[in-house]
C-alpha cells in the first residue's frame, strides 16, 4: 500500500439512532490522510457519536465506514488500528505512567525490552522524560493529557481520534497544548480526527473543519474558508461572532431596512440573510453613505485595549457589532448617532 494513502477515511451515509432519537442523520465524508480534521458543533450535534462509530465503540444504524478502502464497519474496536484520547482521558489508575503508555504493547505480547525502549521514546515525544514510574494520581492535568496522547500513539495507529481532548484543562494550558498537539500531529503526519465544541480550538489546530448541527454536516472547509465564507446562518454564528442582517432581494438588489446593499454573489428574489463579521464592519461619524450602510445610534462601547467593540442600534432588533483593533479606533460616545458601513465583499449571503 502507498504509505501516503495510510489513514484515509470514508464515511458513507452514517446514521445512528438511539431509540427515537436520531443522533447522526446521514453523514457522508471523505477525509484525506495525514491531516487534522475537526468535527465542530454544539453539544448534541452528533460529533462525538460519529467519532465513536469511527472508533467502533458505537455501531452505526445505517451506513458504512472505510479505512484505506477497507470496509471496517463491522470490525470490533480492538481490531481497528486506532488510537484514541477520551474526554475523561481514561488513564488506568492501577498502572504507572509507563504502564499506561505500554499497555497496548503489553497486550500485543511485545517483548519487555522493546516495550521499555518504545515507552521511553514516547515519553520523550510528549516531554515527560523520567516520569515513567509516577502514578497517575501524582500528575498534573497537563501531564495526564500528555500521557493519554502518548498512550494513544504507542501502537502507531492509522487513525488518531481525539474526543474533546483538552476540555478538562484551564484556558491558558489548553491554548498551549493545542499548539503542542498540532505540532506533534504535523511531525508524525498521522490522520487525526478531533471532536470539539470550541471554535478557537478547531481554528487553531485543523487542516479541515467539519461543522455539524443536529446530526448533519453544515459545512466542510479549511478553517479560514469556513470563517470567511459561511454557507449557512448556523455556521456564520457558531464560528466566531457575526452580524446577521435580514432583508429582501428584488431585481438583483438586496434591501435591508430600506437601504440598498451590494452583496458577494448574485441573489434571486425573496427574503435573504447576510452575515457580516464585526471586524469587517466600519463606523463613520460623518455622513452615512447611501449604499451598504445603515444609520444608527451607539448603544455601548467596549474597549479592551487589544480590541475595540461598538454596539450600534440600527433599528434591526439586535444591535450591530463593529469591532476593530485599537489603531482603527474611532472616538464615539454612548448615544451618539453614527453610520455603519458593510463592504460588499464582507456581505456573505447565508440564506437566500
Amino acid at each position, binding site marked *: 500500500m502507498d504509505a501516503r494513502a495510510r489513514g484515509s477515511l470514508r464515511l458513507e451515509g452514517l446514521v445512528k439512532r438511539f431509540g427515537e432519537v436520531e443522533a447522526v442523520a446521514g453523514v457522508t465524508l471523505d477525509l484525506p490522510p495525514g491531516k487534522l480534521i475537526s468535527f465542530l458543533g454544539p453539544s448534541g450535534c452528533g460529533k462525538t457519536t460519529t467519532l465513536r462509530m469511527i472508533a467502533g465503540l458505537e455501531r452505526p444504524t445505517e451506513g458504512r465506514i472505510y479505512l484505506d478502502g477497507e470496509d471496517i464497519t463491522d470490525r470490533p474496536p480492538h481490531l481497528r488500528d486506532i488510537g484514541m484520547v477520551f474526554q475523561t482521558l481514561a488513564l*488506568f489508575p492501577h498502572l504507572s505512567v509507563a504502564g499506561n503508555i505500554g499497555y497496548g504493547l503489553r*497486550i500485543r505480547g511485545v517483548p519487555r525490552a522493546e516495550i521499555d525502549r518504545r515507552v521511553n521514546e514516547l515519553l520523550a515525544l510528549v516531554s515527560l522524560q523520567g516520569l515513567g514510574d509516577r502514578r497517575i494520581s501524582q500528575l498534573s492535568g497537563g501531564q495526564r493529557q500528555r500521557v493519554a496522547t502518548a498512550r494513544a500513539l504507542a501502537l502507531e495507529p492509522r487513525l488518531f481520534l481525539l474526543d474533546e481532548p483538552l476540555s478538562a484543562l484551564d484556558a491558558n494550558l489548553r491554548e498551549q497544548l493545542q499548539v503542542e498537539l498540532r505540532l506533534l500531529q504535523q511531525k508524525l503526519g498521522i490522520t487525526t480526527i478531533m471532536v470539539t465544541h470550541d471554535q478557537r480550538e478547531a481554528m487553531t489546530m485543523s487542516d479541515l473543519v467539519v461543522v455539524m448541527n443536529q446530526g448533519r454536516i453544515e459545512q466542510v472547509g479549511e478553517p479560514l474558508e469556513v470563517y470567511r465564507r459561511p454557507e449557512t446562518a448556523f455556521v456564520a454564528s457558531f464560528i466566531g461572532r457575526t452580524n446577521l442582517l435580514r432583508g429582501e432581494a428584488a431585481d438583483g438588489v438586496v434591501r435591508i431596512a430600506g437601504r440598498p446593499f451590494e452583496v458577494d454573489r448574485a441573489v434571486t428574489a425573496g427574503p435573504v440573510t447576510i452575515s457580516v463579521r464585526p471586524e469587517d464592519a466600519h463606523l463613520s461619524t460623518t455622513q452615512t453613505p447611501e449604499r451598504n450602510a445603515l444609520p444608527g445610534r451607539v448603544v455601548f462601547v467596549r474597549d479592551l485595549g487589544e480590541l475595540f467593540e461598538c454596539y450600534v442600534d440600527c433599528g434591526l432588533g439586535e444591535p450591530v457589532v463593529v469591532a476593530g483593533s485599537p489603531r482603527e479606533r474611532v472616538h464615539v460616545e454612548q448615544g451618539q448617532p453614527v453610520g455603519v458601513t458593510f463592504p460588499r465583499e464582507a456581505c456573505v449571503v447565508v440564506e437566500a
Partner: protein
Amino acid sequence: MSTLREPTRGTRLVLAFPVGMLAVFFLVPFAIMLATSFYHRIEGGFYTPAFELDSWRRLLQPVFIERTLFSIGICLLAGAVCIAVAFPFTYFLTRMRRRPHVTLLVLILSALALSEVIVGFAWSVLLGRAAGLSNVLVWLGLMGEPRAYQPSFLAVLVGLCYIAFPYCVLTLYPQLTRLDPELTEAAQTMGASPWKTFWTVVVPIGRPIILAGFLLAFVFTLGSYLIPAFLGRPEHWTLSVFISDQATFNANVPFAAAMALFLTALSLGVVGLVTWIEGRTRR
C-alpha cells in the same frame, strides 16, 4: 473536602441514639458473654459466676482445633467461589440495559428475604433423592436413577455460597456501577479484546472491592450454623454449629460463650491477615 465542624447540640442528640443502641445491644451483651465464658458450669444447664479457664481450656482439644481449621477452610473456599461468580456477574449486570439490569438486581436482592432456615430446607430438597435436581437429570435421560447429593461437603459449600452471594453482589455493585466505561473502551482501542480488557483493567481496578466482598462472604458464612447443620454430616459442621449445639442442646453456656468469642477473634484475625497481605503485595 469538607472540614470537620465542632458538633452542635442537635448533632450530639442525633448521634446519641445509634451510640446508645450500639452500647445496649452490642457492647453490653458482648461484655456479658465475655464474663459468662469464665463462669462455672453446673451439669444440667446452669452456671454460676466464677473465674475459671475450663471453657477456654476445652478449646485446645484436638477435635476443636481440627473443627476450627475446617471452618476457616470451608468459609474461605465459599468466599472465593462466591466472589469468583459474583464479580463477573455484577460487572456484566452493571453493563446491561436498564430493564434486565433492574429485574436481575431485584431478583438477587429478593433472595435476601429468605431466612437461612428456608434456604437450608430448599437446598436439602433440591439436592435430595425424592424430589431433587437429579430427578430432572433422570427425566432428561442423563442419569439412570435419582440420587441424593446431601448431606455432603459440596452441599454445605453450595448452601453457604447461596446465602453469601447477594451480599457479595451488594458490596460490588456500587463501585462497579461507577466504573468509568471509557476505561474499558480505552483498553479496547488499544487492541485489548473484551476478555483481555476484563482481566487487565476491570479486575485490577476492582481489586480492593474484590477483597472486601471476599472477606464479607467469609465472615458471613463463618457465622452460619443452619446451613452446615442441614446440609452436612457432623464432619462437615463448622464451629458455629458446635456453638449452637453447646448452647441449646448441651446447655453449656460458658463453653458456647468461649467458643463464640474465639470465633469472633478468629475471623477478625483472618480479615486482618488478608488485608495485610493485600496491602503488601499491591505496588
